[in-house]
């Protein structure tokens, strides 16, 4: 019995080592979204310079869509952009954009230079809609179902792997769900 007690510190150490070891595998910078399974918060954003239409939350009701938060000031967004162009060309799912905290004209100049994958873009110069969405950094992408509910959020760049492995299957699943 007393011999077993001597092993307690070692057992305690092993338990903690496993627990903390598992903790290391998680990304601490990823804050879970509060919007999952909830309706997209209402917003009605003006168009960016040179565009006719802005973006309202009601625009996203009726079909499965991606909502991508970007900024011309954001280097990872430049990395992500070709992937968004590719998704837009594939026609699998419409992409809507929120131009987050860009100075006037910067967003449209960016889209002119790199191409425009978005159906509509809203200008969130003040960043209030981003806070309503719980954005922690650009780029972030939401998958919205046909009823306007948020079903998934991806933080960071959409890579080819994430698109084919995670986002695309979910989009197709939700599209199948939307069909009567």
């Amino acid at each position, binding site marked *: 019995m007393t011999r077993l007690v001597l092993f307690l510190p070692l057992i305690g150490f092993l338990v903690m080592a496993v627990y903390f070891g598992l903790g290391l595998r998680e990304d601490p910078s990823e*804050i879970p979204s*509060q919007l999952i399974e909830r309706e997209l918060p209402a917003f009605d954003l003006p168009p960016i310079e040179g565009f006719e239409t802005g973006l309202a939350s009601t625009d996203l009701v009726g079909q499965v869509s991606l909502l991508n938060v970007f900024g011309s000031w954001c280097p990872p967004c430049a990395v992500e952009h070709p992937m968004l162009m590719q998704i837009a060309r594939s026609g699998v799912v419409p992409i809507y954009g929120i131009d987050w*905290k860009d100075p006037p004209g910067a967003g449209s100049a960016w889209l002119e230079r790199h191409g425009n994958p978005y159906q509509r873009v809203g200008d969130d110069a*003040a960043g*209030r809609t981003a*806070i*309503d969405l*719980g954005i*922690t*950094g650009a780029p972030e992408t939401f998958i919205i179902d046909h009823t306007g509910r948020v079903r998934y959020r991806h933080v960071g760049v959409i890579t080819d792997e994430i698109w084919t492995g995670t986002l695309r299957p979910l989009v197709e699943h939700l599209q199948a769900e939307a069909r009567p």
Partner: protein
Amino acid sequence: MKTLLSALAGLMLAVSLAWASPGPDEQMEDPALEARALALYAQLRCVVCQSQSIRDSNAPLAEDMRGVVRERLLAGDSDAEALDYLQERYGDYVLMMPPLQGNTIGLFLIPALVFLGGAAGLAAFVWHQSRRSRELEDEDDVARAQALDEEEGLS
């Protein structure tokens, strides 16, 4: 050398003042509201730079979050309502002090349990040792008494 050092110190001071947050243009007119706002900033986590409160952070998002706090206070929110507003959007993570609830109870209980366990272990050890040394003393006494008895030819 001295002038170089003081120049460097001056430069650092200027830089730190320039970086100080919240910025001067964020002051609220009402000093009572400003005091409440500053206290609230310190309780809210910057979601970009997560070990800092929005009071200490210069991230643009932290600036926006401070703006939200001021808006809520101007709209007549209580401190709790202003915190709720951001908590609803960012979750418990946005609070510097985690709320006491089911999934966080370990944070509060484990240190207390470890402390109590250590204290109990130490108490048990000390008690055991003192009892053992008393027993040993007793044994010694018996042995010595026997030796004396033998010496005097009593047994």
